[in-house]
Every structure is written in structure tokens, then in C-alpha cells.
């Protein structure tokens, strides 16, 4: 192998031979068994029947290589750090690598003109996936976030040209995040507010949980389409259920057992964090089931309430973070059941209605325009 052979100018980015993932992974020391295990886990994250794992495997084995461009705008690189924590490490990350991360300012080797050349080459060919991390400021022509003298908005439009999909990772790219928090001094917005001609998927979270990015990509490669999404463009497999409904501490909520002070007996015993401000009852995310850092933990499991980081405008609508939500259904079901003499179903049904009202009132009070579907 000589240097000349990988001279960037001579290099064909897509390679000459048909791509085979299993061979590519084998070259990197990943066995077929590990690969199939990964496919099974992905089927689980995607909430697919386990038989679908073989379809995932078949699809990934023969998929053509899709180039990926990762843009950073008003961001903290937290989602990039999350990418480095890709669960099911070798395979999960390699799927992304196999996608060919052609441009990523933080992790790529080249800088400046050479880095821009990589991006331009990918965009010119088209058929790429764009991942966006960070919000886009619009105020004063967008001058509050310029890279190489170009505004984030211009770079975004230039890069999504000819792309097959845009994945907005983290709350900032999805909904504006902290830069858009009141009073939103730079008029920051999310990707979907600007990009209309290319399909956009939102994977909010602060940061993104990388397992959901891997699963979205795997879904796309397997089925040739983006996963089913809610009205906020969030995939249902990851954002289809409320934290509160999947929470391991839910029995304590139903039993009326609450943490009252940090470090009290209830806190030490893992009781419900609702009174400490947990936003699980208003947040749609799969943290309780997939957890973080390869299933090690998630905030509630480690003793802290949910902040609602997968929801639009959470810095405005979910604060004060340590103040409890005004109305949550099913409050202390076991504690009151003897007194009211009602079945659990009736109480829960009444509670859902109460919650819907409570949410709407609170949202209005916070000045948010988004309506939530319960």
C-alpha cells in the first residue's frame, strides 16, 4: 500500500466493489454472531417482533453504503459525545462508520479546506444522510452562528440539497433547545422549521441517546423508509410512550409513596420522584426501557427526576425543574382505593382526562404554543 493509493483526489469514496457489511465487520474483528446479536437488539429497540431480526440482518448485509454528513451549529457537542458512547459498541458504531461519516468537524482528521472538500464531494453526489446537532439562529440574517463566514442556515440548506433524509439529533436541532429558551436572543429554531423538501426525523433528548440514532438508521436501511413518527416527527419506537407509564418507580406512585426530601428514606428506597419535580408524566421517551450507557442506568434509576428533555421548549415549559407538575392522574391509587371504593381502571380513566386539562392549562400559562396529544 502506498500513500499515492489513498491520495484524496484519486480516492473513490464509494469504493469499487459491491459492499457487504458482514465482510466489512469481519475485517474489523466483529463476528457474525455478534452481528446477529446486534440485529436482535435493534429489533428490540425498534419494538419489532424478534423474527424481524433476520430481515434486519439481510438488509444490512447487502445495503449499499450511505454517506453521512454531520453538522454542528448552536450546540455543545454533547450529542457528538453521545455518538462516541454508541451502545453495542463495535457494531453499533461500525454501522455508523459503514454509513461513512464523511464530514464531522469534531472527529474528522482533516481541517479547513480539506474538510470542506470532503463535504462538498459528498453533497455533490447526493443520496446522503445529514445529521444536524444544534439549533439554527435566524435573527439579523443568521449572523449569530457563522462557520467560515457562512451562516448556519446557508450551510444547512447547501448540505441538505439532494439528501435522502435529515436527522435532527438532540433537543436543539429538533426544537431549538437551550438557545431557543426564552427570551431566545438569537431567534434559534430547529431543523424542521426550515427544511421542508427533505424528510426530517427528530431525535430529541439532552443529549440524544445514541441507541435511538443507531435504530433509526437501521430501520431506514432495513425497510427503505423512515420509521413511523408522531406529530413532532419523533419515531414512535423511541418516543411513543410516556416515561411515567414505563417507569420502574410507577408502583410507588400508584401506592402514594413519594420522595419528600433528597436523601430521605423514600429517596434511598427508590420511591417516586414526582414531588421532587419529575417530568416523567409529561415526557415521551424510551429512557426507562433502553436506559443509557449500554443499559447501565437512567436519571430516575439514579435518584433524579426526569427533566422532560425530549419535549419541545422544555427549558420553558418544564421549569422550575424541581417544582412538581400541577396535576397528574392516578395519584395515590392504592392509598385512596379503600376510601373511594373504585376499580383501578375507573380512577385511571378519570385521571387521564384530568391530566389532559392540567397539561393544557399549564402550557398556556407558560406561553407555549405546542399542543400535546395525550
Amino acid at each position, binding site marked *: 500500500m502506498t*500513500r499515492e493509493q489513498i491520495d484524496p483526489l484519486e480516492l473513490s469514496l464509494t469504493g469499487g466493489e459491491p459492499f457487504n457489511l458482514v465482510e466489512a465487520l469481519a475485517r474489523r474483528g466483529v463476528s457474525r454472531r455478534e452481528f446477529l446479536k446486534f440485529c436482535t437488539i435493534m429489533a428490540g429497540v425498534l419494538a419489532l417482533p424478534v423474527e424481524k431480526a433476520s430481515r434486519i440482518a439481510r438488509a444490512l448485509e447487502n445495503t449499499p453504503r450511505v454517506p453521512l454528513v454531520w453538522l454542528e451549529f448552536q450546540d455543545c457537542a454533547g450529542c457528538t459525545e453521545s455518538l462516541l458512547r454508541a451502545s453495542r459498541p463495535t457494531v453499533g458504531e461500525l454501522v455508523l462508520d459503514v454509513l461513512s461519516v464523511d464530514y464531522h468537524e469534531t472527529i474528522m482528521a482533516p481541517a479547513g479546506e480539506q474538510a470542506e472538500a470532503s463535504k462538498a464531494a459528498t453533497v455533490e453526489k447526493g443520496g446522503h444522510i445529514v445529521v444536524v446537532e444544534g439549533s439554527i439562529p435566524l435573527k439579523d440574517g443568521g449572523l449569530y452562528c457563522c462557520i467560515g463566514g457562512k451562516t448556519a442556515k446557508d450551510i444547512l440548506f447547501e448540505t441538505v440539497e439532494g439528501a435522502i433524509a435529515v436527522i435532527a439529533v438532540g433537543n436543539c436541532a429538533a426544537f431549538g433547545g437551550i438557545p431557543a429558551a426564552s427570551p431566545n436572543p438569537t431567534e434559534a429554531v430547529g431543523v424542521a422549521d426550515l427544511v421542508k423538501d427533505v424528510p426530517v426525523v427528530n431525535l430529541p433528548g439532552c443529549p440524544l441517546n445514541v441507541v435511538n440514532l443507531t435504530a433509526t438508521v437501521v430501520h431506514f436501511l432495513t425497510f427503505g423508509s423512515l420509521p413511523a413518527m408522531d406529530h413532532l416527527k419523533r419515531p414512535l419506537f423511541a418516543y411513543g410512550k410516556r416515561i411515567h407509564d414505563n417507569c420502574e418507580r410507577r408502583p410507588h406512585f400508584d401506592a402514594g409513596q413519594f420522595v419528600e426530601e433528597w436523601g430521605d428514606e423514600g429517596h434511598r428506597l427508590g420511591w417516586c420522584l414526582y414531588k421532587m419535580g419529575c417530568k416523567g408524566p409529561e415526557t415521551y421517551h424510551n429512557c426507562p426501557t433502553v436506559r443509557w450507557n449500554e443499559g447501565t442506568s437512567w436519571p430516575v434509576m439514579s435518584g433524579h427526576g426526569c427533566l422532560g428533555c425530549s419535549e419541545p421548549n422544555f427549558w420553558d415549559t418544564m421549569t422550575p425543574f424541581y417544582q412538581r407538575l400541577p396535576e397528574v392522574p392516578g395519584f395515590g391509587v392504592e392509598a385512596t382505593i379503600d376510601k373511594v371504593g373504585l376499580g383501578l381502571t375507573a380512577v385511571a380513566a378519570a385521571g387521564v382526562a384530568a391530566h389532559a386539562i392540567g397539561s393544557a392549562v399549564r402550557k398556556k400559562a407558560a406561553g407555549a404554543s405546542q399542543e400535546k396529544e395525550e
Partner: protein
Amino acid sequence: MHAVCSVRAVEDALGIQIPPNARLIRNIIQGIQYVQDHTIHFYHLHALDWVDIVSALDADPAATAQLAQSISDWPKSSAAYFKGVQDRLKAFVASGQLGPFANGYWGHPAYKLPPEANLMAVAHYLEALDWQREVIKAHAILGGKNPHLQTYLVGGMACPVDPNSQAALNADSIAHLKELFVKAREFVEKVYLPDVLAVAPFYLEWAGLGEGLGNFLAYGEFPLTDTVSSDEPGDLFLPRGIILNRDLSKVHPVDHRKIAEYVTHSWFAYDDESQPKHPWDGVTEPNYTGPQPPYEFLNTDDKYSWIKAPRYDGKAMEVGPLARMLVAYASGHERVKYWVDTVLEKLGVGPEVLFSTLGRTAARAIETVVVAEQLINWTDELAANIGSGDLRIHELDHWDPSTWPKEAMGWGWMEAPRGALGHWIHIKDGKIENYQAVVPSTWNGSPRDANGQPGAYEASLVGTPVADPEKPLEILRTIHSFDPCMACAVHVLDPNGREVVRIRIA
């Protein structure tokens, strides 16, 4: 990092002292953050400035194993292992799938390592990727997730401790932490530091380049005793102090009142821009005066940056691992002195070489080892304190804002991996009246102040030789050695002011 700094600011304003368990948990979280973050910085964000991946293809795996075994007893260093890595690398290059490695400066004359050292570094680049993902699980155990832990509270931490509960930090989770910290320490002692020591001799000219300001500021970190206030932080494992004009014979005390920020060349407005403002009096009022985008150039005689220019007693300062290690070394810190002297002796050089690009990179590795040594001790100390029956994690008296005084001021400090971080808060009627943050990359990347003094990045580039102006690898080396928190741009101009190349550095 900002989380701990912000809660310390409020704790300082309200006079809160956190319980020992909370102090120890914070130290452990920050300690493993240093170890993981520094290692990622070296292998994944900085190593390719020194390591030519393509050259690794020409390496002899047996000779690579010999080299690796001569510097460390890391068990993976066999010829077969390096052959495996090289085969994977060959297949990778042959496939044309270079992804993030496409268009690198491979083959640049400033790359000096023999193929074997390059192959060893590439192998460790890959190992570090797996290792960092594993050891940072300590953050998930203590704070629910990484990145962005969710556990910092004004007055303590939200991580319950109870040896008799499954839902709290108990013997089992402590054992898990210790297992991770053994792995953490082993890797940095047997791989990271030895790699730095193996690479450094080929780049000794960088011990005389990239110095910069010669002034260093460290707030210190890891309180070993109770913190009374931000001005009286207790005994710190890494000491607080200032070094001026490269003089290691004297460590000056830090007085946060001497910190003030200029906006002369920043896109912000002050009433009187010839004078700096202390962060308690700070204002952040945007005042963009630059060209409308898209633009090619900024006029550096005017305002040209979104970064303010912080100064200490009027002086520009460098912050980061080098600042912390110099302050500790000059303060006579036992472990820092031991490791700094060990490294200097192995390289056959004196402490003056620390003031350089290479010194910055070496200081980061030394600090990683010094902190990794403490993680298990601090975890044992936490276990012992819990075992004594102390289950407190939070100071409850000030949790309710109705208990607060009508008005309060405080400052929070911390040493982020990339340097000194400060937050200043003014609380009035239970609300934030003013809040200012002076972050490490503001110190290091600062534009000029009213007196024309440059910041650390700018000063450090003076005199850097550039072999190929189209591929200014040498500039990347020095800027990356600071671990900038942002993508920043360096424009290379020829003597006539014509732009040769513009490099963006992540």
C-alpha cells in the same frame, strides 16, 4: 462541568456547605471525567496531528510489538495483535472507505514517527474508543447518564447512598465503580502515558515551540475537606494559584475580584470599552459590527470575536492541564512532582520544556495519571463514610427559596478538563439578577484587549514554522494542544496579506 460550577455559585451566594458524601461523589464524577476526557482528547482529537495512519501500513508488526513491550507491560502488545490491527487497517484503506480519515494530511513532512510507532498509536486509538465508553459508565451509575449527568443539586447531589437498599449507592455499585476505576488507571498508566513518552522524543523541537503567554491560572479542584466558601474551598487535591512569567519559584494566590473582561474587540457593547468589567458587574449586550455573511475576512482592528477578553489583574492567562500541573508542581504537590520529574527524566530534559506545545500535551497525560491514582481512594473514602452511618447527600436548609436572603452574590469555580471555569451570580428576590460565565476557551481563545494584549492561542502561534502553507499541520498541533471547546478558524496569510488557506479546527 457547568453543572457543578453553577451549583457552587449558588452555594457560595447562600453560604451552603454540602455534606461529605456529596463532596466525594462530585470528586469521583469529575475525576473520571478528567481521565476519560483527556484520553479521548489525546487519541481521538490530537493524536492524528502527530501520527500518520498511512505510514502504519509499512510497519513491521514484530518490531512494533518489540517497541510496545519495551515501553510498557500492557498485555495486548504481541506481534499477532499488531498484525491483526494492521490487516484491518489495510483492508480499511483498500476498501476506499476512509470516512472521517479521508483528506487528512497523511505523508506531510512534519510527521516524524517511524512506521512502528504509528502502528502502535493506531492500535491504541481503537482501544481507547472502546475503553472510554466503558469507564464513563461511572457517570451513569452516579448520575443517571453520560453525557449530561442529571444529579447536581444546590446543596448536594441527588444520588442516594444506603448500604441496605437496591435503589441507592450500595456495596454492589461501589464495587462496580472500583472495577471501572481499576480499568481506567491501568490504561492510562500502561498505554496513554507510555505512548506520550514514546512519541515525544521524535518531536522534541515542539518542546521549544508554542509557548504562548507564560502566565497560568488555576482555581484548583477536588476539595479534600469541607468547603467553607468559594474563597475558602478547603484543602484542594490540585491547588489553586497563579504562575507569572514562567517563574516556578513563586505561586501567587487567586483573588477572583481581580478578574475582569474587556469587549474592545468583541461583538458586545459596554458604556466605556476602554475598561474591563468584573463578572458581577458584567453585561452581555450583543453589538455585531462585522460584515454581513457570507464573508471572507474579519477586520481585526475592529471587533472580530464573540469571545470576550478576560484578564487577571490586567494580564492574559493560560488555563488548562498545563496551568494546573505547573501550579501543583511549583506548590510542591507530591504526586505531581513525582510524575513530572519522572517524565522529564525519561525525556532527558528540564522543567523549562513544559512551557510549550509538547509540555501542554505531556501535562495533560501526567494529570490523567495523577487523578486516575486517586479514584479508588476517593471511592474507598466514600464507602467508609457511608459505612460509618452518614447517609446525608444534601443540605436541606436552603432548598426552599423562601429561606433565602433578599439579595445575595456568589461565585462558582471549577477546573474543567480544559481549564478554569467560573460562574458569577447575583440573586435578588429569589431570582437571578445577573449571571456571567467565564469559560476556559474564553481565557485561552480570547481576542486582544484594550491594551492590545493577545490571548493564549494567538501568543502560542508566534514563531511556529509551517512547512507547507497549504497544509498547516504545525498550527493544528499547537491549537489542538489547548483542547479548544469549539470549532475555531485560523487563517494563514502570506507576507502580502493574501490568504493562503483557512483551517477550521474542531
